[in-house]
């Protein structure tokens, strides 16, 4: 009786050790592993003999390297990592397109390409811009820290709805656009 309990206890400890090991291990997903589309618009992954359904596709460096180091995670509360893709461009065109589709669903950060106008009125600033996702209008609260500087020339603007807009390079804007933006820099 006693022995059995001890054995079970050892088992539990083993589970922990395994989990700890799993946690620190780094698996690489390469072109050898297969992704497939589901009917509902998600993807499954076959990896090391297992099928993972509806995996999560997560960027590890969304700002600095959006297409490198993509973490593929299980689709549940814990979202355990299955593996990491070092560079999307190393994958086949088809897989790449599949994953990019997922990334589009998971990340929506329009990049501002042109500023038509910025109007400030009583504490709020109203932007009318062209982004890589099309033309749009949004408003920010001037009192809060709506604008975050990622670097000297790179900005993230958070609007009232918590949408995020990116300006990749402030210096690439025209003089006139920069003047409009000046208030927030």
């Amino acid at each position, binding site marked *: 009786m006693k022995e059995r309990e001890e054995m079970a206890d050892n088992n*539990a400890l083993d589970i922990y050790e395994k989990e700890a090991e799993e946690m620190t291990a780094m698996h690489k997903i390469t072109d050898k592993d297969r992704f497939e589309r589901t009917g509902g618009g998600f993807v499954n992954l076959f990896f090391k003999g297992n099928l993972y359904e509806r995996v999560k596709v997560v960027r590890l460096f969304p700002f600095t390297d959006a297409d490198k180091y993509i973490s593929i995670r299980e689709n549940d509360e814990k979202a355990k990592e299955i593996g990491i893709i070092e560079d999307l461009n190393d994958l086949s065109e088809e897989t790449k397109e599949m994953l990019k589709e997922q990334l589009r669903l998971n990340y929506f950060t329009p990049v501002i390409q042109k500023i038509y106008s910025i109007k400030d009125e009583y504490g709020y600033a109203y932007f009318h811009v062209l982004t890589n*996702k099309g033309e749009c209008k949004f408003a920010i609260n001037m009192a809060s820290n709506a604008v975050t500087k990622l670097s000297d020339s790179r900005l993230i603007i958070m609007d009232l709805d918590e949408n995020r807009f990116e300006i990749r390079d402030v210096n690439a804007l025209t003089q006139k656009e920069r003047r409009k933006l000046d208030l927030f820099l």
Partner: protein
Amino acid sequence: MILHYNLPKKIIDTIPLSENERIYYAVPFDIDGEGQWTEGSYLIVTTGKIHIYENEKITETIEIKNCTKAKAEAKVGGGILTVTIGDEPRVLVHYSAKHLSRYAYIARGINILISGRFEEVESNEYEKMCPKCGRAIPGTKNCPHCSKEGGFLKNFLRMAKPYKKGFFGVFVLMVLAAVTTLLNPEIQKHLINDVLRGGGGMKQALVYLAIMFSLSVGIVIVNILKSNASTRLGARISEDLRMALFQKYQELPLSFINDRRPGELLNRITQDTTFIREFMEDVFCNLFAVFFIFIWDVLFMMILNIKLALLTFVTVPIVVVMVLAFRKSVHRIFHLQYKKNDDVSSDLQDVISGMRVVKTYGREEAEANRFKALSTEFSNTQRRNETFWAIFNPIISFLMGMGAIVVVYFGGWDVFNEKMDAGELYQFMTYTVLLFQYINWMSWLPRTLTQLTSSLERINDILSQDVKKLDDAELAEVDIKGEITFDHATFGYKSYQPVLEDINAVIKPGEMIGIVGASGTGKSTLINLLMGLYEIDDGHLLIDGTDIRDIKRKSYHSQIGVVLQETFLFSGTIIDNIRFSKPDATYDEIIRAAKMANAHDFISRTPDGYNTYVGEKGYSLSGGERQRIAIARAILTNPRLLILDEATASLDTESEFMIQKALERLTDGKTTFAIAHRLSTLKKADRIMVIDGHRIAEIGTHEELLNSRGIYYKLHMAQIG
């Protein structure tokens, strides 16, 4: 928040509705299949179907009866609505962060329809942008710009109503001020015409001078009285508003406060009421006087010399346009300066509060350089601005004086041609100067009024909140026995993020329940619900069989004792803090409670004993000491229901053991909830509840859970192994 948008007729016409079918929800989605912004696309939920309307037609229709589940998943910068058909989850629409909360409600609504019920989900959240005018709404229900019912004038009048007398007094003084101000130039004219040019005697001159003198004194006195009266009035109004707001905050459910940004509510008490006071002091007290004087000023000018008056008026728009443009650029550069100033101070704060880290990594020099760069930039901006100001301030005075120059030039001709006499010209000049002064003053009005409207709207937003039958007479007084029932309880702080889902458990009176689970799973949330701090979204929480919503808060709270994870001590003495839960406690009771919490000894060691001042600026207590005071506070009332959230986590093993022993005696026969990461703390618990994945994953006695070899078993092994 709108869940059923008014669809244009041509969209409604495309939706096939069978008999007994109606539109439940219609909400836009703003991202298309290619991940581009899109407009005019809608998700429409009817009694039996989900339609997706895109590019002027219905592109997809899903039968609700084929679905098993709808889910609004929050993603980065947006989200997706999925439905599960058969076994397969399927993306329906993609939307930006603007609609995140909206779709959480829609998903809830669809799930209700799937389950065969027909209730309609409603949302109490506010829109952030006005759907009518597209302006941002300052955290209130109605757009201050568009709302008719809560319009500015009405709000202002409602606020002013209790102060009728005060307002009337200020009003009378304003009229007096206007009359005295306008009379002065008239007397001056007579002085010039009748005395100086007409050769009147010394006596007449003295009479005019005396009138002028008394008028001037009168103006000063009236103005002093007026500012005094309006300052007093403003202070009284803002004080009353502050008090009303504060009381309201205490009555409002925490979820209301939770929905608002931290600091925002504070600002409503401090800044908004201050703004109203300042408005009363600086603007209101002059408001009618200025209008009154302005109108008479214009009339007098026209009576005196219509040609000259019209000439002057022509310059007004030019001056106003120039002044406004100038002001805009001033606003701009000074705003820049504030921003830079903010940068510098927040950077400084960062470095100072992180000093230990900076020093540990030897980064002092790098930080100093960074700070220097910021500070240089700031001082450059400041220098530039001061220069700008120095150059342009005289220019604005010049602009304001332009009208006077026109008057002197053309009026001078008239005097030479004897169409006007010198006294009249002088009087006219005085009126011109007054005119521009008041125009300058009035040009600030739109801005001030908008600010006032926002402030009033924000204050009213709080004051007009309906507080749900909190402590109404119809609510029951209770004598808690301690039976707690969670019945399908679901709750989330944000509508699109459930923290606890479908919690079911019956706790018997006198039972001690240990709660364990990973960090962030919702243990503290569970007890927040138990304390009645938040309302459950779905399901019920019953205390001795009565819904917690139907129990009188005060009577309930007086019977529970709580030690929270974040021990909070008010600024005040130790005795104040312990007595907080029972203000009329005797010294005897207090000392007994402190002893039980193992706090008496360390309190005795402080120089001021129980009168030691603690809190932010006071005597600093260690984490464990604070916790012990909180425990003393919790047990002082001899509560029927005891809640301990990591109550002994910051204590050393010995203190914990001692308190455990004391608590055992205390918790005997009382329903107790104890959250702990250290399982040894829960040795005496009758049952253990394991929270995982938003639910109760396991519940049972220590032995039962060990035997079932689940999460608890693993935790147990990890802690003893």
